[in-house]
């Protein structure tokens, strides 16, 4: 998949600079910028959350995030995309993931932004541990889709 050089794909260990990301997708040809700000909620399944700790398989996470960016360019009529995820300890209310998509028209920007966050949550190797007053657990997650038995098929053909 082709890389669009104006896209921003980041893993960061400090606060995400949302306004810089929005600025990075804004061009004169755009009529819309849609953003998604994923932030740390104060409870999970009714238990009060103290903070979250995110870890990633960083090299692979960047590969998968670049794939998502390339994919939204092929699926939607958009201009630029910025995709950033923060790692490490995050307090309640802080931004863990931020996405900005610019497009000439708003429908494509909305759809692409939704697609990007849904795909990120399903396929990018990042994990969060939730810390509560009485302990910590790794959050329930989604098992990414994996190519099945391609090697068996190859050798059979």
């Amino acid at each position: 998949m082709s890389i669009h050089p104006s896209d921003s794909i980041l893993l960061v260990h400090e606060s995400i600079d949302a306004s810089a990301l929005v600025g990075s997708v804004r061009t004169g040809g755009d009529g819309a910028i849609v953003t998604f700000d994923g932030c740390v909620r104060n409870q999970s399944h009714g238990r009060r959350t103290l903070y979250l700790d995110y870890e990633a398989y960083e090299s692979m996470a960047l590969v998968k995030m670049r794939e998502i960016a390339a994919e939204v360019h092929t699926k939607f009529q958009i201009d630029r995309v910025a995709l950033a995820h923060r790692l490490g300890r995050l307090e309640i209310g802080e931004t863990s993931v931020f996405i900005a998509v610019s497009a000439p028209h708003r429908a494509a920007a909305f759809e692409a932004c939704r697609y990007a966050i849904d795909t990120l949550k399903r396929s990018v190797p990042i994990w969060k541990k939730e810390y509560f007053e009485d302990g910590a657990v790794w959050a329930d997650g989604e098992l990414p889709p994996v190519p099945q038995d391609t090697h068996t098929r190859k050798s059979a053909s």
Partner: protein
Amino acid sequence: MKVLFFGGLKEVVGGAEEFVELKPGSRIEDLFAQFISRCPELARFRSSLVASRNQEFAAWSTPLDSGDEVAFLPPVSGG
């Protein structure tokens, strides 16, 4: 070869990164079996994890080379 464990798996194995000698002809499932023999508790995670080879998700039947980087990944929970 380099083998990585993440999330809860890292805690089960007792480390995030391992270097192992690969038996010739090994597939990802064989490598995982090698770890189960060292750490039997891993067996119950077999159906709820995926593997990657060189930063791409890979089927259990994927053949391995000694220079590969393999990771075992629990369900992802970013965002």
